């Protein structure tokens, strides 16, 4: 299930990724889901897609986080407690962090405006870093995919960063250039149980080889792995439950 709030705009992109990963995705509008939280029981995997929920007014993901906490808090906790995988991408990640679902244990981290001061769209290279996270476990190679955000700089205090590292909750880091000044080059986090993944970049925009900007023009070694691999992992985990 892909949850869409007013302003979510990459739901179709992530639907393609899930289909290619072997799932049968459907989009649920957040207002309808709130009216009938039981719908969550019918989902095996949950996506909070990217975009500008509620216009990102007052800060990225803030209003959606209040929305989810107020209206779906228990249902979401129940979903995660059942071990069903959840992924929040870009605005979905910002929302999961604001709502305290990531990294878990209260609000301990934030996604601040990029150190460049504005929205930035470019391709980055990601290193999978967590074996605990069901989405990244077993992935070796770098993953290439674009970023497209204005508020993606991961911020927390030094102790939290160290603790997240110790707990194997840093799921993805920027390999090579750090595009937004994130602490520890953190691009994605998982929760203590490893079923929730949040990340700023857009793996759903690199699910076919020809979507890579260096697919044809590039020389060997220019092209990293597909973002699709993350979705294959997540869908496999959901199916194994």
């Amino acid at each position, binding site marked *: 299930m892909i949850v869409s709030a*007013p*302003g979510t*705009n*990459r739901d*179709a*992109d992530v639907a*393609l990724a899930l289909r290619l990963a072997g799932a049968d995705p459907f989009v649920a*509008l957040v*207002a*309808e889901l709130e009216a009938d939280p039981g719908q969550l029981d019918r989902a095996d995997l949950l996506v909070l897609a990217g*975009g*500008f929920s*509620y*216009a*990102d*007014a*007052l*800060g990225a993901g*803030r*209003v959606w986080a*209040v*929305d989810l906490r*107020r*209206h779906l808090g228990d249902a979401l906790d129940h979903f995660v407690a059942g071990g069903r995988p959840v992924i929040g991408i870009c605005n979905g990640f910002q929302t999961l962090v*604001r709502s305290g679902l990531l990294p878990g244990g209260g*609000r301990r*981290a*934030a996604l*601040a*405006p990029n*150190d*460049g*001061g*504005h*929205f*930035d*769209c*470019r*391709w980055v290279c990601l290193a999978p870093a967590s074996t605990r996270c069901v989405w990244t476990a077993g992935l070796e190679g770098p993953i290439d995919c*674009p970023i*497209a955000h204005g508020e993606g700089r991961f*911020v*927390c205090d030094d102790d939290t960063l160290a603790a997240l590292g110790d707990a194997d909750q840093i799921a993805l880091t920027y390999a090579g250039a750090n595009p937004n000044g994130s602490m520890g080059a953190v691009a994605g986090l998982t929760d203590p149980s490893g079923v929730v993944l949040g990340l700023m970049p*857009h793996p*759903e*925009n*690199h*699910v*076919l080889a*020809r*979507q890579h*900007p*260096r697919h*044809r*023009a*590039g*020389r060997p070694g*220019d092209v990293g792995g597909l973002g699709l691999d993350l979705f294959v992992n997540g869908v496999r985990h959901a199916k194994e439950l």
Partner: protein
Amino acid sequence: MGGTRRVGTVPTVPGMTERLVVAARGQDPRSAAVTRAAATLGYPHLSIEVADLVLTDHPVGRALGDLLIEPLLQAADDAPGSTGVHTVDVVPRHGVTDPAATELHRAAEWTGEAVRATVGRRYRVRGARSATELDRVVRRLLANPVVERWTVDEPIDLGEPPEPAEPIVETVAVAGLDDRALGALNAERGLSLDLDQLRAIARHFAALDRPPTDAEIEMIAQTWSEHCAHTTFRADITLPDGTTVEPLLHQLRSSTETLARPWVVNAFAGNAGIVAFTEDRTIALKAETHNHPSAVEPFGGANTGVGGVIRDVMGAAHRPIAITDVLCFGSPDMASTPDGVLHPTRIIDGVVAGVADYGNKIGLPTVAGAVLYDPAYTANPLVYAGCIGVASTLDPPLTGPHPGDRVVVIGGRTGRDGIRGATFSSRTMDGATGEVAGASVQIGDPIVEKLLIDVLAESTGLFTAITDCGAGGLSSAVGEMADPLGAEVDLAGAPLKYPGLQPWEIWLSEAQERMVLAVDPARLAEMTTVCRRHGVELTDLGHFTGDGRLVVRHGSMTVVDLDVGFLHDGRPPRSLRAELPAPQRDVDQLPPANLDVAATLLALLAHPNIACKADVVRRYDHEIRGATLGRPLIGVEGDGHADGVVLAEPTEHHGIAVGIGVNPWYGMLDAERMAHAAVDEAVRNVIAAGADPDKIALLDNFSWGDPRRPSTLGQLVAAVRGCVDAAAAHDAPFVSGKDSLNNEYLGRDGQRHAVPPTLVITAVAHVPDLTRLPAAELRHPGHYLVLIGAPETWFGGSHLHLVRGTSGGVVPPPDAGAPARYRVVHHLIGGGHLGGLHDISEGGVAVAVAEMAIAGGLGAHLEPTDPATLFGEANGRFVAEVDPHDLDLIRRALPGQVTVLGVVSADPSLRIGEAVRIGPDDLRRAWRGRY
């Protein structure tokens, strides 16, 4: 500073205002940016800090406070003012779209805190030397009087919107007015009508024996405006020798009819051009300008320009898939600007942010475009926005409206924003324009428009006709749909942002993000359900009648009662005089033979028109939808420029290419040849991107000066002739177009400053095979670098002249061999023989090769060293990277059109002859605009 000052006019009612100032912990990047901007404007001694300011009518509770402040990043700032630091509070004016406040109200409902709020900024300014200086900085940098109000050294109040007035319909006396009185009425109401048109209105109402209402006269002015009726493009034009020129719109239309391409579905009718390159789907394309609004409120102007052109595509019943933009600005390093004109840096920042905000938030990739700089655009910046959409050919056709269909408006609410935008766009600007144009400017809300896209995707078959509410608002949208049927609507039920709008204001308001639908009464319930599901407001205003009258009521009052025939056909034809230009076409203005080649090439690369645009392009999400397979930025470091972009559904094997052609420096010398060159460049770009030369559709967008000046109109006539000839030569039909005239600024000195003739051509073409897309970069050391096209070049309007500060000469003539050449090139691409290909445009061969080298991270050794070969400009040419094994084959395929320029080298330097060697660092530094 001598006491407190209240600068903005705020009609306040005593009430409570709670102020929450939210400041970033550590350095806020916005503070550095605004301090830098102040220095650019000539105030390097100022230091400015910025924080968010939230005004509420109740103290903010814990839950809302938690929403407003992220403790890891922000803190409430209640520090009192200190000596030497001035506080400037800025908030949106009442009634201006304020999405942050809307969302705050929504969240407050959830948390159970009933607050009324507005969200703005608090600046702390250090180092101001006088009150006058501070006031100037506030007006030029910190606030925009058009859409914002502010206070200095006094906390700003939430205030109350103006007391609503009782709705009334006034009549306007026109009977018996002489020409002078008609002129005065024209000026007083800002109607922008000609005397002939005013007389026609007076005659019409004299015959009816009643005066027009305020709404009627406003509606006629809007319908007949240059902006909506394209009076110039429909005018009869006479030349000094008495011969007449066929109306320009007819010329373009009949050129498309003559070409008779079977895949053209709809040209020059409705909201957008429509083509069908494949059997299963149609593609809608449209480009618009939003020049005047962007001059006075750059963010809002560009923002709503993008929103408007997206609605054009929605109004053609297509789902938008991509955005294009072409921006023309004054020079950023300009020391001062004329009266009432914003500095180019402010316009650039605002326009780019405005395009990025709308495109990124609505979720469409902004993929193709251009950014041009010239002092001639200082007072009249140009903002072109385009949109491409798709629809399935299986969708039921739109057959309405039918008599009895409901007139339904969906989307945002109506406010006082954007009143008279159509007539405002049709007039000359001067020092006071920013002041008087306040109500003409709107701020967009892209999320609402995103929801409209979602609603329309789910309501195929539920409506019989659709159009967007753009310039002229409901008046224009309902007025056009009701031609010839007629309609009857009641405005009393129209949802308003706030009470107190007069009926004529509701009818004319250009409030954004609204669409008008014709809905069969039997399907209205279903339509309402879809809208409700997405949280989009739907209002049933009335019905289409069939009696040919447009009747608008507000409750019991009659606001408009007009004959649709008079409204749409009663406009007296416009007659204009034109003097054709006589461009210099004999003797070119050549550069000296002993030119310093290395310094010249670096200066060209660093020229803002040529240099890397990554800083702008990366502000736009060009990756969303995963469909941008040929990107605007290419190369090993992702900062090279592609020619055209390629869009394709991720799982399909064919797609479309988009290319842009524009060259106002040619236009300044020779408008006809400019038009030819712009078409050729747009076509060349899509060819270099892999497009099929037999499936290329074109859009024209003219931005010009006042067409009542015969020389200016003459340039327009010449440019249209160039367009028509070029379309015929390339067998590429125009399917839609738009003109923006009167791009002039009347200086205090009485001088008129018009924009140079600026024609933007957009080409949209079919790409049959995604596996053979050429790349505009060097990839293979040892391969030849080859010029494809004619070796002759010209310097009129060239960038070599621009960087040398010289001018004059002959603009490149059309290349008669180009269309056939492009077909061969396409064939060679398909055969895998032209994998590296780059269009040659501004700066000539040397710039094209340098761009390919920078993109590919390789170098080249070029043999020619003469300025004409290196820097001269011409139509119809490419640089190609050619495998030595393919050279003979390519020569045979393109006899006499292939010149070997040199070879690709692994050494990333660029060598020209034996004497010149430019290292990769110098190339890239210049490319990044630092030379």
